[in-house]
């Protein structure tokens, strides 16, 4: 079982991967992978998830747990027996709970022996860095500032080879 995060970037079962990426990238990975519905998945987030409401998952295999403290996150990780464990990092869980950074990181690593564990944050912070120390891989997808293609924009000009240009590459059309 694997998840394609972006073309050429795949996440496999039996690994713990820390991912920093813009929200649309991670949402796309979760929403556009129909295969994910076949596996028992657990989504862990704090009280104020940035992406939970935009996840389009109705599969009965997609389960949720919301730990509001680092102690609860640790409990949830120890109790998880899912194939995919996705953790939306919430730095506020570790406010005043630095003592749990090492145990939680160890629990993430342990869970990653069996499951596909993804620790996600849109930006790096101190607690994320501490947790990611135990990850098999740290993947950072940087927002390049390319305007997103919205499907409405049409470039009327034709490429010499007959292919229409990607809107974001207007300045490169001389090539």
């Amino acid at each position: 079982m694997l998840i394609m995060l972006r073309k050429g970037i795949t996440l496999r079962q039996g690994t713990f991967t820390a991912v920093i990426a813009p929200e649309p990238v991670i949402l796309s990975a979760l929403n556009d992978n129909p295969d994910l519905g076949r596996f028992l998945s657990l989504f862990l987030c704090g009280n104020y998830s940035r992406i939970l409401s935009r996840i389009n998952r109705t599969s009965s295999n997609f389960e949720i747990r919301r730990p509001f403290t680092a102690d609860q996150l640790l409990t949830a990780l120890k109790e998880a027996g899912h194939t995919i464990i996705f953790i939306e990092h919430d730095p506020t869980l570790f406010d005043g709970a630095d003592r749990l950074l090492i145990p939680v990181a160890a629990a993430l690593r342990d869970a990653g022996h069996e499951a596909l564990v993804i620790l996600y944050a849109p930006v790096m912070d101190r607690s994320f860095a501490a947790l990611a120390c135990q990850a098999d891989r740290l993947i950072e997808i940087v927002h390049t500032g390319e305007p997103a293609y919205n499907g409405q924009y049409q470039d009327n000009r034709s490429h010499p080879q007959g292919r229409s240009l990607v809107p974001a590459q207007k300045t490169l059309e001389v090539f």
Partner: protein
Amino acid sequence: MWILDSAWHNGVDLWYRNGSTKCWHHEYDPPFYLYLPDPSAYHEMIDELKERYCAETCTFRTLFGDLDGFSVHADRAVAELIELQTKGDAQLFNVDVRRDQRFMAEQDIFPCGNADESRYSPDFQYDLRQVEIRIHDPPARSSLCTDVELVQERTELLQGTGHTVVTDLFSLLEAIDPDVILMSQADMWMPKFRVYARGKGLVMPFSRNGNYRQMDSRSYWSYGRVEHKDAALIPDGRVLIDTDQSFVYREGGLDGVFMAARLSGLSPNLASRFTPGTLISSYEVYEAVRRGIVVPFRKADVEAVRKFASLQAADRGGMMFQPAAGVYGNVDEIDFASMYPSIIVKFNLSPEIPGPPDRKGFLASVLEPVVALRRETKRGKKANSRYAGIDSLLKWMLVTCFGYTGYKNAKFGRIEVHEAITRRSREILVQTKDIAESRGFCVLHGIVDCLWVQGTGVDDLCAEVNRKIGLSAENEHFDWIVFLPLSDGFGAYNRYYGRLPDGSVKVRGIAARRHDTPGYIRIMQQEMLSIMATARTPAGLGQVRDPVYRIYCNAIRNLPCTAPAALAISRRISRTTYSHRCIEGAAVQAYRDAGLEIAPGMKISYVVRDARTYRVDPEWAAERFDLAYYRGLLDKAWNEISYAFRWDGHDSCGEWKAQKELIFPGFSHQGTECVQDL
């Protein structure tokens, strides 16, 4: 014997009041409890705990059942070391319960009462010597007080140099030997008194044994906003209440503070300084210990695994019915008293439920007597004014008990309980609406636990609601009520005002009610409302339109010569650094420039000198103000009132148009002639 105060000094000191006040020291060394899922993995640590801290195997009762573990006679530092060593495997209990509170809970005694009386009686008696100290100097800008009133049987005025006044104050307190000291800004003055007393070799007479406990200052989030609590010096053997800062005292008076202490098992010194949320949480802790249930140190029990669809269905708040903005006559507000706690009790909602089906859940059983007491005080306060303070305190404690079920650090909270409460409340509001409509009522508006209806036979409606739903619903009649509009024209949920049958006006969400409204504008709106209160019907409002409008015109005319202090805006700041320029940020900077330390959650009071360039002065230093800015605030307050006269579109009064022609003599308030009446 009546317990006045309690403290921990290598044992529990209880200050009893029995004619005189005496301290009894009780030897007490309570253990905390430790549970390890696999004790053999930590056998070396356990051996060490046995040797150093008399650890013994034992069975203890948690909310979710019995656990076999260890009792350890050590403090929090040792507990935290165990946590570190076990990497979160250990579960710890009773680590952070206040030891004087725990002692009283185990002995089934409580502060501000005798052991043989009910904690839940609102008719408790006390015979205490009280003194009130009113200090008129601004504490933030004065090192010592120079103008003090000391009120006991008679009022003593202490004025003069700081040294004279403080020495006289100390002498008087020594002579009076009060049990209760009510002091304005006590928590700001006490550290200054201590520094001064140390410097001059004086003995501070606030404590009965010379001991003072220190509470640190802190900023914290509460209900979406940042609050600040000053550091406090708490004396032993006397109750010292900061009459300005204590929310519990402000809302409940001395009776409220004492009731809070009785319920929570905390000394009244602490009860007066804690928020209602901390009080209800402390009450739950006291009850848990009294019932032999251990209190978890860390909140580790996480919500159950759930499906995405079930989360979407469950995770909603209270129900709202949006009103149509306008003026309505003969409206009744049907209100469920203490709805959320009543739901917890009635539906037996508790973190450990489902448990044994024949047993009442912990949370429900703990709240039941408090809900009953609130019902009694709410009913009784009309006849006995003493109940009003207790009722107000209970109201706040019960309001927060719902939020605490979802609070991440609540010892006995659980998000599923939080969701179940809101689910029940939605069902109840919809059911009430259906009952009202089936009896021919028109439902105008609804918020969580209130419904505004128009129709006849409201007493019968309430009786049916009480019978069918099983919660106590009460009604309040409005001769007329104004639901104000949002900017899109639809009705606002939380901004309305209306006339009650006794001629008073109940207001919510408008300038007269808001804490940050300048006094000048608040007074203007209150005057308008008092005139509108003479109208008994919506039609009668038309007849008071002109006098109300004249108040507005006078307020505009007199605005330029208003004292800047009357235009001060008081706000609680949520931060001390601002990424964008704004009025609040400028006010924070103005305070800093004046040499005052600012922390998030503190209240500041400022006057806007020039809104365009963000120039702001602290209230005490303000000499000028931005006329256009305050005219804007005035107009906003007027619009809230004038809506009652123009909501139906018939507002084309020539007199109102003339308001635009009022001339302003520049942007300074100085040198302007003011008009008392048009």
